[in-house]
């Protein structure tokens, strides 16, 4: 088994291309099936760590404070995301509760933590323990984090309630809006690029060290 360097196989249709360096802002698409093959990283590499940290802060605010508060004839009720999950599981809807917990809390948090864990040592040109496993986990988690869908869900719920009660948006709602923006920027980063980042400059050094 030998590695074929500078070659790209289209994940959408199996066509083989030779890799050519991309210009900034370039996106390479397979001419046969339209799948994105590669994307120029640009200055994303420097922005990604600060954005991850910002996302983690927003994530904390979004989950610690109530999202919305309703007032109905003097009676108030409010909830956080975790609170909604708890109520769902108490009602015997634990599969749904688990699904909501995973897609809106667990997976996004895991993605952000893995990203931070991988990015911090990377700026010093070494690979943290469990690098391969974590990059693969990042890639598998990618379709399952659904913060932006949840935000739309919150807005729909607010409109739905506004006819029957007074709805007061909580601080977490604004945090969710900010989180959606930063998370979109963070997760547009393809985890596959980790392999390119570390292998080219640091790969040779590592082999020398192990030899």
């Amino acid at each position, binding site marked *: *088994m*030998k*590695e*074929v360097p500078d070659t*790209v*196989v289209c*994940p*959408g*249709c*199996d*066509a*083989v*291309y*030779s*890799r*050519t360096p*991309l210009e900034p802002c370039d996106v*390479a698409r*397979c*001419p*046969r*099936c*339209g799948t994105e093959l*590669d994307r120029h990283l640009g200055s994303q590499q420097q922005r990604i760590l600060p954005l991850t940290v910002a996302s983690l802060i927003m994530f904390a605010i979004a989950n610690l404070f109530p999202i*919305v508060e*309703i007032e*109905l004839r003097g*009676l108030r*009720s409010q*909830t956080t995301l975790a609170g*909604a*999950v*708890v109520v*769902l599981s108490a*009602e015997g*809807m634990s*599969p*749904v509760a688990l*699904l*909501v917990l995973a897609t*809106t809390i667990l997976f996004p948090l895991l993605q952000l933590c893995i990203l931070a864990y991988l990015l911090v040592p990377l700026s010093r040109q070494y690979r943290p323990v469990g690098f*391969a496993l974590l990059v*693969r986990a990042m*890639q598998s988690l990618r*379709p399952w984090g*659904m913060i932006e*869908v*949840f935000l*739309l*869900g*919150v807005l*729909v719920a607010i409109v*739905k*309630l506004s*006819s*029957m*009660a007074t709805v007061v948006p909580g601080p977490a709602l604004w945090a969710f809006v900010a989180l959606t923006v930063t998370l979109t920027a963070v997760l547009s980063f393809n985890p*596959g690029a980790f*392999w390119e980042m570390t*292998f080219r400059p640091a790969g040779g050094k590592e082999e020398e060290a192990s030899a």
Partner: protein
Amino acid sequence: MRLFPFPRRQESPQADDDVFDDDAPVPTAASLGLMACPHCAAVWRDAQQGDACGRCGTHLHPRKPQSLTRTWALLIAACIMYIPANLLPVMITRTLFGAQYDTILSGVIYFWVSGAYGLAAIVFIASFLVPLFKLAVLFLLVVLAQRGSTWRRRERAKLYHIIEVIGRWSMLDVFVVSLLTGLVQIQGFAVITAGVGIAAFGAVVVLTMLASLSFDPKLTWDSPGAQAAGRNFENREEQTA
């Protein structure tokens, strides 16, 4: 930017993406005896099926293993769950005036009647049309891939991209119901509980997402001959296992 097909097309660059000939033979990894790692995209020569990628350790397969069988299974399960998801109530509102049972579509109708047309459209598209569209498209893709059809392969690839992007948005209703359940717990006045329908609906979304993940888009582009070879490969693997 242009990536030239490797190795022959290099001297005759494709001028325009749109004039790409669909049926022209293109050098593929399968025909060149290469295998690409699905995770880190490293390309290997002389690799055997099931070998670990030398860079990240993922098992290499020329196509996703048992792709069509798995996709069929998940697709059929999703179709079955689609029925209770639309017929059973997803949300139960108990107020002083009695209980109200809402299905997915009655929620849409409620928005429409109360004049929130935009919102009615969003919920209708995300909760009703998107899952239906996904099921139909996956069905089409799997059947055509199974027959080794070369019919409109470019459009089929595009459809696959579309369902990959829009699939997650059908979770909208699950989140709406979850949030309302958590929020409206004013005992005696108004209590919203989640209905069984929402569990079935969540199952449809997860199952269709898993189905589209297990479908290998490369199967769309395999010529009938190459696919038969792949199937033989799978059979042989089964026999040895």
